[in-house]
């Protein structure tokens, strides 16, 4: 029995908790990508850097608050700064929309042109972030780091294996649930949300029914800015803030959005978790867990690792390819890509 518990704790500690937190971060990012795809009809490559910009503005406000001696006790001060970060990010994306995207939207250009345009925006945002805060690593998490640390867990339970649960992981999961619930309520229950979905389904019909397209676009950008800032800040709290990493996050985020079905919010969430769990489980060395769970003679000598960790990205892309081959619209009937 003790062995079983030890194995379970090891599994939770090294697979379930990290993958859930990472999955929630990817899901929040993928939601933003999928909303843009669903409503504005293009793949927004600038999303990773919008997340970086959101995190950066939040960090700057956090430093200001810390300078004034404001803190949230065990919770990171960044939570308090987050609304300001969202507002600044919203200003940025609305600005880019007015300056860049609106011009192309008026011309009704093909989506692929908007994709290329978004890459341009990506490079500019990328440069802007580095220009303002610099390329260095910034650690802005304060407050209590752990809900429970591995060492404390061992002392409390007397088990050999430790279980660590970080404040940032808990916060990520809780925030993701709240944000997703709020988003679904907004899209399905409010008049504005419904008009957004109508616009997504058929732009011309929506126009005929008296929906103001510019208003829908503005609201979409504001929501996307909020999602990006939240995802960026949560990610930065959990790991640390470095502009370069956000640029790299773009790949798993897009993988998540496409696996789930581009344009489908619920698909983005499912996709986030599929990508995160597949990266962690397929490359996990099961030796430790199996040693606890299997009787002596069956215990493995090797590492029982399906694939070396070198291949963890190959795993999410293999899933992506398989999904596209058999269900081109993704797991949850998004738009075909």
């Amino acid at each position: 029995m003790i062995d079983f518990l030890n194995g379970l704790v090891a599994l939770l500690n090294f697979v379930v908790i990290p993958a859930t937190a990472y999955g929630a971060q990817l899901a929040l990012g993928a939601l933003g990508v999928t909303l843009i795809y669903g409503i504005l009809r293009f793949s927004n490559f600038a999303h990773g850097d919008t997340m970086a910009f959101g995190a950066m503005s939040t960090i700057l406000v956090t430093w200001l608050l810390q300078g004034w001696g404001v803190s949230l006790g065990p919770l990171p001060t960044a939570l308090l700064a987050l609304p300001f970060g969202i507002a600044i990010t919203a200003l940025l994306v609305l600005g880019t929309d007015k300056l860049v995207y609106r011009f192309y939207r008026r011309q009704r250009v093909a989506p692929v042109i908007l994709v290329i345009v978004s890459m341009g925006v990506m490079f500019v945002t990328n440069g802007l972030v580095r220009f303002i805060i610099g390329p260095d690593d910034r650690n802005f998490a304060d407050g209590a780091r752990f809900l429970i640390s591995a060492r404390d867990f061992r002392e409390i339970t007397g088990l050999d294996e430790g279980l660590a649960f970080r404040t940032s992981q808990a916060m990520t999961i809780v925030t993701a649930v709240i944000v997703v619930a709020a988003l679904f309520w907004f899209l399905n229950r409010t008049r504005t949300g419904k008009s957004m979905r109508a616009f997504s389904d058929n732009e011309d019909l929506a126009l005929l029914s008296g929906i103001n397209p510019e208003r829908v676009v503005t609201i979409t950008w504001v929501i996307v800015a909020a999602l990006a800032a939240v995802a960026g800040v949560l990610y930065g709290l959990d790991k640390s803030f470095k502009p370069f990493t956000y640029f790299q996050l773009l790949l798993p985020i897009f993988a998540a959005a496409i696996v789930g079905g581009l344009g489908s919010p619920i698909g983005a969430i499912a996709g986030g978790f599929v990508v995160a769990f597949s990266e962690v489980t397929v490359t996990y060395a099961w030796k430790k867990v199996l040693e606890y769970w299997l009787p002596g003679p069956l215990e493995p000598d090797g590492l029982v690792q399906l694939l070396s960790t070198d291949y963890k990205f190959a795993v999410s892309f293999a899933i992506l390819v398989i999904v596209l081959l058999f269900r081109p619209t993704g797991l949850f009937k998004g738009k075909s890509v």
Partner: protein
Amino acid sequence: MKKLLMASAVTAVAGTAAFGAAHENVIKLGIILGFTGPIESITPSMSESAQLAVSEINDAGGILDGKMIEAVTADSTCVDAAAATAAAERLITSDGISGIMGADCSGVTGAILANVAVPNGMVMISPSATSPGLSEAEDNGLFFRTAPSDARQGEVLANILDSKGVTEVAVTYTNNDYGQGLSDSFIAAFEANGGTVTLNASHEDGKGDYSAEVGALASAGGDVLVVLGYADQGGQGMIRGALDSGAFDTFMMGDGMYSEDLLASIGPDLNGSYGAVPWSEGEGTEAFAGLADAAGFDPASSYTRESYDAAALIALAMQAAGSSDPNEYKASILDVANAPGEPILPGDLKKAFDILAEGGDIDYVGATNVELIGPGEAAGTYLEYTVEDGAFSQVEIR
């Protein structure tokens, strides 16, 4: 209208002439470092350090009868061989440089060497490419480095573990030429000492999440986790992940992990961990620290000393050979770097030029006690350190 045309033609001709005249008195030095990419946080100091050497030379009246050195920078990106090659190509063909201080990361350095430097006959002195593979690269005597090869570092790390009685370790390395080369040489040396490596897992830099790698390493077990990565990149992510999940308590760190930022961001949990870093001490290092402080950057930042030495060596070799043609001065680099001759410290470059101009011999000591061995690479002394009370504390020089 005719007059106007005439006037502009005359101005253009005059302008070109002035441009050409200015050119004759300038020797351009290419500085190729990864100003963007995974090591973008340490390259600004490296570049400043090389520029410090350049401005010291110019203040001393230049080289080769008063020619000034002008530094031209380009971005190696550290990871993108194609971009780095294009940048180096541009420096040679359009800027007309006479030597390259760079590149930084081993992968792009090898690419620039093979694709640009050797075909164009250009001297390269890298301050920070440490991959053992570069010792055997085909270079026509054009490639040098002021940083030691990681073959040596692997032995040093293995010996530190040996002296601590650690026999079983897990290894994680950053997935590039540097990490791969260092982990290979470390594992060979460690196993020769009778140690066991439970798992050798790579990690990618700048990625979102390292729980998969930490999970696999934790499962494999070992007394110590050997981290051969970058302090502001995956290496830090791996240590943080391993500490947070309680997988490992003690870490041994390669040279890329030596950074004050790492101590600041990981905090007290890092106490008791140890590692090695290329080190130099003595008059040269102190002299350099003084210069760097005066110039307003941190002399202890990674590879700043090596950068200063690389830039200085190129200029000294040009002066010794009496030419800025790479194929003529390449043979002088070993002469000015090694004994015999008058020892030259940072800040003494003017003295060195005077001696060389009179036909004398110098032994450039520089900021890192430069001693080039074998195919022109630094012999390398390392500092063994442990982390105590949130600070690096020196144990011994190996």
